[in-house]
């Protein structure tokens, strides 16, 4: 199962850029659309300690808010091992 969950909304450019980034790196992920999926929205707010802004990324034990390629790359390497 994919280790990475991402919480997104349909018209958010950061979310689209995040998905393209993960796909390009051939990293498996599950994406939730929190605009329609209320359960996922609740879960996102829960794990992120109240964040109501997308994208939120959950990987290994970490929750990251927003898409910043540099810091995400670092976290991916930590979570998935080198070569991520």
């Amino acid at each position: 199962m994919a280790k990475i969950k991402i919480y997104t909304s349909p018209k958010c450019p950061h979310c689209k850029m995040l998905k393209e980034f993960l796909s390009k790196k051939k990293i498996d992920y599950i994406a939730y659309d929190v605009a329609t999926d209320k359960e996922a929205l609740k879960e996102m707010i829960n794990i992120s300690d109240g964040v109501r802004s997308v994208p939120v990324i959950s990987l290994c034990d970490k929750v990251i808010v927003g898409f910043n390629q540099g810091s995400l790359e670092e976290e991916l390497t930590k979570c998935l091992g080198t070569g991520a």
Partner: protein
Amino acid sequence: MEGCPFCIKAKSFLMEKGIRFSEIKVHPGSKEWAQMQQKTGMRIPPQILDGDEPIGNYSDLVNAYATGKLTEKPGLISTLYDVIIIGGGPAGLSAALYAARKILKTLLISQDIGGQVIYTYDLNNYLGFSQIEAADLIAKFKEHVEKYGLEKQVGKKVTSLDLTGKIKKVTSDDGKTYFSKSLIIATGKRPRPLNVPGERELIGKGVAYCSTCDAPLFGGADVAVIGGGNSALEAVLDLDKVANKIYMVSLTELTGDPITMDKVKKSSKVKIYTQYDVTRIIGSSSVEGVEIKSLNTGEIQKLDVEGVFIEIGLLPNSDLVIDILSTNKFGEILIDNMCKTGIAGVFACGDVTNVPFKQVIIAAGDGAKASLAAYNYLISQR
């Protein structure tokens, strides 16, 4: 020499400044010690030489650097760029493309690629694309620029500039300093904050600046939109589709496009407060309300909301140069029609400048102009 604190200091200074050097270890009585004495006339290490020319000890080195004597000698610096571009929005990317095509040694430093374009869903006014998603346009920009093998540092914030010498110095938040013969500032704009208590603490926890992104997360909620211009009206319409109740709070009467204003006024969900100021955003772990104050009566009231969308305009990212370059009353860098600032070799373009009409196509055109002007400058300096 071993056990010489100023030798260590001199080495780390040179490393930090990106200045190439080789080290000759000396100890009293050695051949190297004699050489040092012969070349510099001095007996105490460290002694720093530029070729065969003695610079002096550690404090002479720092002085030589501060007065620009060292950096004026291009061979000494690890990499000397023709042009450094700060900013990866439309203006900076277009400048990078033109610089790369002129085969200039170019470095682009930016916190992100895309700039403000990331805060909008789609565009309908960029020539050649009747409708394109922002993420796709940015991907196209990036792909085009990368075709020329652009050197870039993304995710880095430029924290200081030294524009006093002929060689410009650019320092980023990771402590690295870069050197260049010319500089293009394309740092654009950022959302203007309200600067009220609670705002910073609750960013992302109900305080939002991107309605396109975050409006859908407030389904069934009561929310407030702060601002009275076009972007605030657009935010209200984004929220109108999902929220339960929308309070629109503005210091002034509403301004903006009449059609959008009409739609907002017609919505039964919207309650408009004009001539009201925001005094506080309330909430501990997430937004619980916003406190507003009537400009007419001074009366304060609390609106119970889960979200506060702040749409009160933009601020130019000119903090780096506010004391160095001329700016207008909005803080925008003043440029002429060649994108020149008051300092030779320093150019600016796009939204951070006084160029009228802030649009992607205008910023992109302006970036191209800045790059061509930098090219002319470099030729004139040869």
